[in-house]
C-alpha cells in the first residue's frame, strides 16, 4: 500500500480526520502515499484528553508509528494556563490555532517542504486564515478519493461508510437514549 513519493511533502492531520479514520479503523491510510506524517501537539491533546471511543486508539497509533509531534506555543500556553488554574475550559478552537501556528512556522523554517494539512469538509469551509504558499488544505474525502484513484484503497466511500457505521454504534453508548 505504501508508495515511493517525494520526501519534501509532509502530512499534518487535524482532529477531524484522525477521528474519522480511527472510527473506520483506517488510520494507516494517512501513511499510504509514503509521505511523513506529523501531529500537532494541541491536536493530539484535543483528541486524547478525554476518554472517548477513539482517544486510546489514536494515542496508541501515534506512539506505535513514532510520529513526530509538532510543539506549538498554543499548546504550551494552554498547558501553563491549566496548570495555574487560570483556564480550565477545554476550548474547542485551540487545535485550530495550533495548526495555524504550525503552518506559519513551517512556511518560515521549511519553505521547500510542502505540507498537506488534512481537515474535515466543514473546517475547510469555515477556515478563514491565511494559508502559506507551501501549505495545502485538503479534506479527508479528497484524501480518500486520491488514494482510491491511485489504487491504494478499493473505495473511498467504503471507508466513509465504515466510519459512519462505527459512529452510530458508539453514539448509542456515549449518548444513551
Amino acid at each position, binding site marked *: 500500500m505504501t*508508495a*515511493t*513519493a*517525494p520526501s519534501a*511533502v509532509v502530512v499534518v492531520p487535524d*482532529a*477531524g480526520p484522525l*477521528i*474519522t479514520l480511527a*472510527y473506520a479503523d483506517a488510520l494507516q491510510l494517512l501513511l499510504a*502515499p509514503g509521505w511523513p506524517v506529523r501531529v500537532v501537539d494541541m491536536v493530539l491533546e*484535543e*483528541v486524547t484528553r*478525554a476518554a*472517548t*471511543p*477513539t482517544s486510546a486508539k489514536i494515542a496508541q497509533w501515534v506512539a506505535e508509528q513514532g510520529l513526530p509531534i509538532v510543539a506549538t506555543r498554543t499548546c504550551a500556553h494552554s498547558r501553563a494556563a491549566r496548570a495555574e488554574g487560570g483556564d480550565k*475550559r*477545554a*476550548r*474547542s*478552537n485551540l487545535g485550530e490555532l495550533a495548526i495555524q501556528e504550525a503552518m506559519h512556522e513551517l512556511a518560515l523554517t521549511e519553505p521547500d517542504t*510542502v505540507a*498537506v494539512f488534512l481537515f*474535515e*469538509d*466543514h*473546517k*475547510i*469551509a*469555515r477556515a478563514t486564515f491565511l494559508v502559506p504558499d507551501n501549505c*495545502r*488544505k*485538503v*479534506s479527508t*474525502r*479528497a*484524501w480518500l*478519493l*486520491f488514494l482510491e*484513484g*491511485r489504487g491504494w484503497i478499493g473505495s473511498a*466511500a467504503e471507508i466513509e461508510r465504515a466510519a*459512519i457505521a462505527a*459512529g*452510530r454504534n*458508539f*453514539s*448509542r453508548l*456515549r*449518548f444513551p437514549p
Partner: protein
Amino acid sequence: METVNFTAAVDRELLKRAKVIAAKTGTSVNALFSAELRYLVETFEAGEAASDQNYRTLLDFALGRADDRTAMAALGIDNQEDLFLLMARARLPMPRLPDATTRQMVDELEALANRA
C-alpha cells in the same frame, strides 16, 4: 395516503448509489426517499414538540447553515468527536464541500505525488 409528484435536484452520483440500494433491497428510489424524508420530518417535529432544539442544530450544521463552533456551543459539547457521534446518531450527513472543490484538492494531491 394521497401522494403528489414534485420535482427536485439531486447529486447524480448519490442518485446512482440510491438506485443500487433500491435494486439490492427490491424497492424503489421513491420509496427510499419517502422513508428518509419521513424520518427527518418526524424527528424534527418530535424535537420541536419536546422543546428540544438539538436536532434542528444538527440539521443546520448538516446543511452548512451553522458552523461547527456554533453547533457545538448550542449542543453544549466541546469536542469534534461528540459532534461527529451526534450527527451519526441523528442519521444526518456531515457537511460536504462541493464536488468541484473536492476534485480540485484531489488534483493538488495528484500533482504532489507526480513530482516524484
